[in-house]
């Protein structure tokens, strides 16, 4: 039996009907066609489905859609403002943090989440912050560099 669900995604209000067993990830992708958020394992182990809920990163495959009632979700699509990439997105582009790109949205959300909490992280802190995001292509080095560079840019803009 489907239940009604109201929530906000990337600043837009949504009213949807979902099955109880529908995950937040499946709602985003299959119903709303916000396909930037990826399914890598469906068991919380890879982080490809990472989104922000009220500034906290979560693996959306591990949440029921119904659990997101009245929440504000940010997906990778929501980071682009006025056709401009978020500094973390821009840094991934400039510093080679993207290869196949499948882990990229999740990694970017984790990077954004980290910088919301800690604008001046060390390399070690970055590695632990993205420790729930599996990447098989980059070996992580350029991803870490990109997040550190994005942090630098964001601190400079803020000051």
């Amino acid at each position, binding site marked *: 039996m489907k239940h009604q669900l109201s929530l906000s995604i990337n600043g837009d209000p949504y009213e949807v009907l979902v099955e109880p067993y529908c995950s937040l990830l499946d709602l985003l992708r299959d119903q709303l066609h916000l396909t930037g958020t990826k399914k890598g394992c469906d068991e919380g182990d890879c982080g490809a489905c990472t989104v922000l809920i009220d500034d906290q990163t979560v693996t959306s495959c591990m949440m*029921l859609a119904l*659990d997101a009632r009245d929440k504000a979700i940010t997906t990778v699509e929501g980071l682009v403002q006025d056709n401009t990439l978020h500094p973390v997105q821009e840094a991934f582009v400039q510093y080679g943090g993207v290869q196949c790109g499948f882990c990229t949205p999740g990694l970017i959300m984790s990077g954004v989440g980290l910088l919301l909490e800690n604008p001046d992280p060390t390399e070690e802190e970055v590695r632990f912050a993205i420790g729930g995001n599996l990447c098989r292509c980059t070996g992580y080095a350029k991803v870490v560099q990109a997040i550190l560079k994005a942090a630098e840019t964001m601190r400079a803009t803020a000051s």
Partner: protein
Amino acid sequence: MNRFAYREALTVQEAVDILSREEGGRVIAGATDVLIRWRQGAWKPRYVLNIKRIPGLDAVSYSPETGLSLGTLVTIRTLERHALVRHCYPALAQAATAFAGVQIRNLATVGGNACNASPAGDTLPALLAYGAVCRLVGPAGERLVSLQHFFQGPGLTTLQPAELLVELCLPPLPPRTGALYIKHSPRATMDIAAVGVASVVSLGEQDGICQDVKITLGAVAPTVVRAHAAEAVLQGSLVDAARIQQAAQAALEDARPIDDIRGTAGHRRAVIAPLVRRTLHYAVQMAQGTELSLQTQRGLAVEAIF
């Protein structure tokens, strides 16, 4: 994967009523464990009962008289970052930092971790070593059960039908207390512990005498267990390197590890003593007043390369 139904409760009583009235329900908070088992086909609940909307169950409070109170919905991420937990019950914060990854920590709850009752659950050795007490609410009312007695076996708790865990209470600690949790696993994040060890040591006024000690072992028995024989070596005695080593060896007596995908019984047995020794060493240092930075604590907890 069956098509389960969805229920929500807005009060503890409502939750108990639903569980009493309708068979085949599973309580969800973070939902992480339930969704995984459901997708594997291991669990086929008739319905899930979401208790995350019940106000007040995510509170953290502390007083020197009553100790730390953790609502069942307190997330692992909160445990990791909350100043009170970090300062007063550091082994719990260390365990939280070793738990999966940030995303899961934002979803998973301390109550969920306890009710899942995995012998390897990361928060459980620290909770047990801190003497946690569970407050349960059910159709027959409220009762208190020590965490030790809460666990009955792998995945089994003493929860009665329609009973809910609503709070974990950690007693106050003596002033000169230190603690360390070490998780032994191949990776620094995301793994389930192959072996987990927590030691909480309180030193008396006279430097060097152990006033109280709790040593707990995870993933080496059907539930998380106390290493009583190890504790007996130190309790009331002068703490020195030799005693610590002796206690570490004695910890083996309470371990009954098995072979599984995460390790052999033999390997688990082989690492218990070194890990117990290390947790004791640092717990004693902290009890003596040595400050270990959060970074150092994390590094020790997850056997990091940094």
